[in-house]
C-alpha cells in the first residue's frame, strides 16, 4: 500500500479524519515550516512547487509562488532540502505541468523518489493526458493524485477515481484555491458519491481555512486539505502561528 494511502488509514484507525496541509516551497524558511507542520500533527503534507502561472490558485498562493520564484527557488533546491528532513508525515509535491514537462516526467519522478517524496498532484494535467506521468511515477513507486471538481460528471469522476493512486483530491468549490466563507450545500453528497466509487481515500480541499469548517467535514471525507490559510499565516505571522493552526485543525478532526 502506498505511504499516502496508509497515512489516511492510520488516522482513521485512531478515529480521526486525516489532516493534509499545504506549504509553498521557497516562500521563507520551508524546512522550518515543514518541520513545524509535521510536529503539529499533519497526516500528509503537500509541498507546493512554485510556478509562474498558477491558474488553479487564488491570490494567496499566487503571491507565495511569486515570492518563491523571486527568491530564485528551483525544483532541485526544494527537493534537496526535502530529502534531509526525515518527516513523520509523507510529502506529496503539488505543482503545475510545465516544470514537469520541462524536466521530463521520468526525471521528475526519479528526483521525487530520491528526495523521499511519495507522489505528485498536478492540477493542470487532465485525465486524458495523465497516463505517461502516472506510469513514470508508478515506476518509481510514487502516486499521481488526481483531482475531481464539483462540475466533473459522475461517470468521469468514477473513471478518475479508478486511475487514482494514493488518494483522490476532491475540490470542494468551483474556482481557485483560497479561503471561503461557506462551502457548497451538496458537498457531503458529492463526497459520499465519490467515496462510493473510489478504492483510495478521498481528501477534500479548496476553500477550507478554519477549524469549524474542518470539524463539519469530520467523517465526511477521509481527509481535509488546508492550504491558503497555512500559506497566509506563515507569511504574516511565522512558523509558530502555523503550528498553532495545524494543532487546532487536527483536534477539530
Amino acid at each position: 500500500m502506498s505511504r499516502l494511502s496508509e497515512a489516511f488509514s492510520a488516522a482513521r484507525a485512531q478515529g480521526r479524519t486525516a489532516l493534509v496541509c499545504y506549504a509553498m516551497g521557497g516562500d521563507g524558511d520551508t524546512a522550518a515550516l515543514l518541520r513545524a507542520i509535521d510536529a503539529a500533527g499533519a497526516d500528509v503534507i503537500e509541498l507546493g512547487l512554485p510556478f509562474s502561472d498558477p491558474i488553479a490558485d487564488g491570490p494567496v498562493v499566487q503571491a507565495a509562488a511569486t515570492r518563491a520564484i523571486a527568491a530564485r527557488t528551483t525544483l532541485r533546491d526544494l527537493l534537496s532540502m526535502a530529502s534531509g528532513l526525515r518527516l513523520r508525515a509523507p510529502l506529496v509535491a503539488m505543482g503545475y505541468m510545465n516544470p514537469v514537462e520541462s524536466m521530463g516526467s521520468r526525471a521528475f519522478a526519479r528526483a521525487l523518489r530520491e528526495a523521499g517524496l511519495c507522489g505528485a498532484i498536478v492540477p493542470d494535467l487532465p485525465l486524458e493526458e495523465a497516463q505517461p506521468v502516472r506510469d513514470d511515477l508508478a515506476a518509481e513507486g510514487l502516486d499521481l493524485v488526481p483531482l475531481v471538481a464539483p462540475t466533473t460528471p459522475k461517470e468521469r469522476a468514477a473513471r478518475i477515481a479508478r486511475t487514482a493512486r494514493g488518494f483522490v483530491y476532491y475540490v470542494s468549490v468551483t474556482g481557485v484555491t483560497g479561503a471561503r466563507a461557506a462551502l457548497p450545500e451538496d458537498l457531503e453528497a458529492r463526497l459520499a458519491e465519490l467515496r462510493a466509487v473510489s478504492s483510495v481515500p478521498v481528501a477534500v480541499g479548496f476553500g477550507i481555512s478554519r477549524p469549524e469548517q474542518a470539524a463539519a467535514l469530520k467523517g465526511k471525507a477521509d481527509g481535509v486539505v488546508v492550504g491558503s490559510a497555512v500559506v497566509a499565516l506563515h507569511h504574516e505571522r511565522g512558523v509558530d502561528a502555523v503550528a498553532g493552526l495545524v494543532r487546532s485543525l487536527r483536534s477539530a478532526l
Partner: protein
Amino acid sequence: MAKALGLAGRVYLKREDLLHTGAHKLNNTLGQALLAKRMGKRRVIAETGAGQHGVATATVCALLGLECIVYMGTEDVRRQSPNVVRMKLLGAEVRSVDAGSRTLKDAMNEAIRDWVTNVRTTYYCIGSAAGPHPYPVMVRELQKIIGEEIAEQIVDAEGRLPDAVVACVGGGSNAIGALHRFVREPSVTLYGVEAAGHGLESGKHGASLAKGRPGVLHGSRSYVLQTEDGQIAEAHSISAGLDYPGVGPELSHLRDQGRLTVLSATDTEALQAFQTLARSEGILCALESAHAIAALPQVRGALIAVNLSGRGDKDLGTVIEALK
C-alpha cells in the same frame, strides 16, 4: 508599398483592418457569442492583449444582450487605452490584471480563474488559437474565412493562388485563419512572422516558434518561451497582440512538419514598416500587422498575399512615443 520595400513580386493586402471594430477578431467573437447564447450562458468573459479581441467581444455582447467582462494586463491597459475606452463605451467591464508581466498571458490566467469559478453561468470567449481544447480548433474554424477569402479573391484578380501567404503570429488566430486554407496547397509557401522585440538574441521578444521549447501553457502543449526549469518567461513586443510567450498548437505542429516558415521582425523594423505602409498606401495598420509587412523582403514568390490583420488607430500613442 512593394516598390518602397524593393520587392520584385506583386503583393495583395488582405484587409481585415476594414472589418467592423478594426481587426479580424470579430470573425471569432461573433461565432463564439452565438454559441454562448445557444448554451444559455448570460455572462461572457474574455482576455485581451491589444484590446482588439476585447473590443470585438464587447461589441457582439452589446449586439446580443450579454454581460461582458474583459481581463487585460495593466501594461496593456496603459499602452492600448483607446481600446479600453471603446470596451467601456460598449458596456463591458474591463478588469486590469496586475500580475506577472501584466500583459496577455496574465490576462488569460485571470480569465481562466474566473471561468473555473463561474463556469455554470459563464462562457469564456478566447481570442487566440490557443488555450485548452476545443478552443484552438474552434478559433481556427471561425477565422479560416480569412484564407478562404484570400483564395477566392486572388483567383478572381490573378487567376491563380498566391505563391506565398504571410501573417504575423502572436497567439496565432489571424495566422492560422489566413494560412489554414493553404496547408494542403503545396505550391503556396506559408510564412508566420513573430515579434523579435529587441532582437531574437536579446531575450526580450515574443518569438515562441523560433526560440521556445515544447511546454504546457493555458491548457495546450505547444512552443513556449520558458526558463531552464520550466517557469514561463516574459515575452516582449512593441505590439501588445504579439506579446505572448506561447503560440497556438496547430502553428507549432505546422512548424514541426516544416510546412510553416517562421520569420520575425524587431520592434524597430515593425515601426519602419508601419510608416512605409502609411506613406505608400495611405493605410495605418496595427503594429501587429506591421510585423508581417516588415518581413516581406524575406518572402519569396511573384505573387504574395499578406494578412493585414488590424488597423492602427489603437497604436498611435505607442507610435508617437517610439518615434520621439
